[in-house]
């Protein structure tokens, strides 16, 4: 049982190639604790970097090469991510839900024509996509969405409202679920659509939220409300067939429920908090003389280690093509709850200074600590609440039921 890759000479050669290429191409962008502080110019540099990665097939390295992905093994993709991580650059380097979520749904459920049409532009980074799922009346009970997409000739006519959508700088496409047959039973009444965002009748309005995450990788991002008023979209854009939208959504929801995190990134906040604790004083005495402080620090360190290992297990097993059941939701639950308990531990140890935002002189660790205090709260809800993760775990383990719930299809 190896917990680390042993690199072959071929893989090392690939890493060298990647390293040289990144050195030539990566934009130089300062560290912004709050991604919302990224300027438009900096954003465009990251966007352009993504396009160049896309040309190499490195934007979504494990997706099939025939559709514009890299066709790379998990090992090579990890090497790529590690090299990018040296520059604090996630993959993709800007907000896009296309290649890891929606694109996988198209790969699994789309016709050959749809795959050939949509996937290359997603995987090469020519377009960015938003995911449109949550509605004002449909949160945890996602299948109860009310937005309609009613067939009219060669088009669907879409009406309704989606919330908690996207990011700061727009997207060329969105993908969404909507009711195609209002008379059909629950779970059989939905369609899954690729929606060009430049169609007439679409209005985007920014929401006022506690945390504005901005455009760094898959960070929560600025969130918007999207209104659809008689938007006419070609029937070709419905993926998976009418009435199958819930099954199609099962694919990307499966990934979102705990299979998104890469195996590469550790949580950099831990070291920042440790550094603070090693140098800070209270009542003129070193903070670390307080046994309670040491206990609080090690407790959240251990939580973070467990989260890391559960994600690592999922990443490795998914890379081998093993069918995961409850494991994704379990890692996601640990991650969400771990962030909250860490936030409290940090607040205990640092006091109210943890709540001061950069660039104020009193902000800790350049503002990373305050961003985490906000982020820990906000991260409880995307991709299903902690309670929803528990529901998924229970169904997948078969607690109280002989037949276990099937995971969403990933291939």
């Amino acid at each position, binding site marked *: 049982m190896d917990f680390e890759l042993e690199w072959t000479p071929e893989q090392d050669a690939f890493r060298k190639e990647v390293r040289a290429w990144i050195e030539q191409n990566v934009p130089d962008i300062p560290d912004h604790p709050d991604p919302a502080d990224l300027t438009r110019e900096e954003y465009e540099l990251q966007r352009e970097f993504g396009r160049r990665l896309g040309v190499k097939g490195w934007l979504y390295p494990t997706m099939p090469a025939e559709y514009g992905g890299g066709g790379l093994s998990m090992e090579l993709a990890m090497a790529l991510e590690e090299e990018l991580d040296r520059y604090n650059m996630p993959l993709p380097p800007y907000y896009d839900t296309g290649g890891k979520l929606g694109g996988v749904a198209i790969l699994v459920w789309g016709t050959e024509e749809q795959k050939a049409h949509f996937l290359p532009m997603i995987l090469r980074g020519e377009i960015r996509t938003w995911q449109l799922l949550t509605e004002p009346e449909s949160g945890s009970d996602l299948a109860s969405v009310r937005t309609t997409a009613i067939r009219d000739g060669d088009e669907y006519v879409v009406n309704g409202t989606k919330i908690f959508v996207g990011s700061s700088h727009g997207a060329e496409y969105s993908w969404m679920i909507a009711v195609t047959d209002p008379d059909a039973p629950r779970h059989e009444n939905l369609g899954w659509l690729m929606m060009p965002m430049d169609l007439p009748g679409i209005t985007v309005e920014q929401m006022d939220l506690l945390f504005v995450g901005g455009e760094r990788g898959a960070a929560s991002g600025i969130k918007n409300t999207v209104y659809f008023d008689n938007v006419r979209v070609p029937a070709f854009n419905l993926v998976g067939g009418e009435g199958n939208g819930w099954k199609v959504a099962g694919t990307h929801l499966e990934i979102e429920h705990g299979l998104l995190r890469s195996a590469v990134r550790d949580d950099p906040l831990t070291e920042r908090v440790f550094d603070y604790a090693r140098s800070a004083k209270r009542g003129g005495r070193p903070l670390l003389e307080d046994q309670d402080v040491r206990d609080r620090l090690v407790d959240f360190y251990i939580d973070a280690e*467990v989260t890391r290992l559960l994600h690592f297990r999922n990443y490795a097993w998914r890379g081998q093509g093993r069918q995961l059941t409850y494991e994704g939701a379990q890692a996601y639950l640990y991650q969400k709850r771990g962030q909250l308990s860490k936030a409290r531990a940090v607040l205990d140890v640092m006091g109210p200074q943890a709540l001061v935002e950069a660039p104020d002189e009193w902000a800790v660790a350049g503002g990373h600590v305050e961003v985490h205090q906000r982020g820990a709260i906000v991260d409880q809800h995307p991709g299903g609440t902690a309670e929803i993760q528990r529901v998924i775990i*229970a169904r997948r383990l078969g607690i109280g039921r002989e037949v276990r719930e099937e995971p969403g299809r990933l291939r």
Partner: protein
Amino acid sequence: MDLLLNEQQRMLQSTIQDLLRRDFTKETLVAIDAGDVDGSHGWPALASTGLLGSLVPEEHGGAGGSFSDAGVVFEELGRGPVPGPHFSSGVFATLALRECGNDEQQAAHLPRIVTGDEVFAVAVTEPEYGWERGDVQLVAERTSGGYTLSGVKLHVPDAVHATHLLVAARTAGENVGLFIVSADAPGVACRTLRGLSTGLGEVRLDGVTVGDEALLGGGPDAWDAFERAMLQATAVLSAYQVGGLESVFQMCLEYSRTRRQFQQPIGRFQRVQDHIIDIVNHLDAARWTTYEVLWKLDTGRPAESGVHMAAALASEGYYLACNAAHDVHAGVGIVREYGLTLHTRMSRTLYHHLGSPRYHRRRVADALGLQPGLS
């Protein structure tokens, strides 16, 4: 990065599963727990498979296996949980002999541990309980050609089944040595403590005399080397607790499907589900930290913080999982023949063995350099 058992480990696992199905059924384990079957039951069968020699080098008749191999064996034993001196003898004493013993001592005892002809218990802790050097107060007085040991060792696992004791004692000043003491030597008296713990005993040493050859390694202080052995043994003990957690989880899952109240399986209630989800989370936290640190030990990576982390999670996880399992089972859970209380008792018994969860967490902090004055 496969995170799977290798072929050899799968064979090992299946060998021991067969043995447990044959010699350690739930009925047998309950009977041992009730005192109706002797605690040494199945010991010869276990020894005859060579499983106790997992960590003994091949030159001494063992399998020369890795820590991960031993983890496979002890995870399966923990599922029972199979009580008895397999851990004390096949892991703890074996590793102490490996780390602290000289060639003669290893050659004299390791082969006989593998065959089960000798059974070792490790007597470290005392009434002022603890697992650090300073907690060893029992004195070994120097005599001509040997030592005389007097005092009490407390909460020693499996002492009554042992042929030999490995006794930690002060040789001079702060120095702590480890002595091989025959369990039937004059002045040695072992008894099992009654109560919720299982298999823990008192060892009284009353003027017990041993020769120089009984002192592991021959030098006045073996504690630093013994700490390495404790660290390694702790990782294998965590694997045993992972096995216990796995069993508790499976019992609860099964019960959630078959037990009906309010005209439906109790597992349909989210309050019941939450208990079982907590158990599987404790299980996987303990499992993956344990597996990772066994791998670190096998590959010579720094493992100190990892061992203490896994031990903390395994000990507190096993304890809390049993509590949750009693919530799921209510009255049925405390009926001895149902089998859950085997785990409940074991989770309490092992809670402090080789250090409590809080102790281990603090050692993680030490290993991470979270100490004043270290920056």
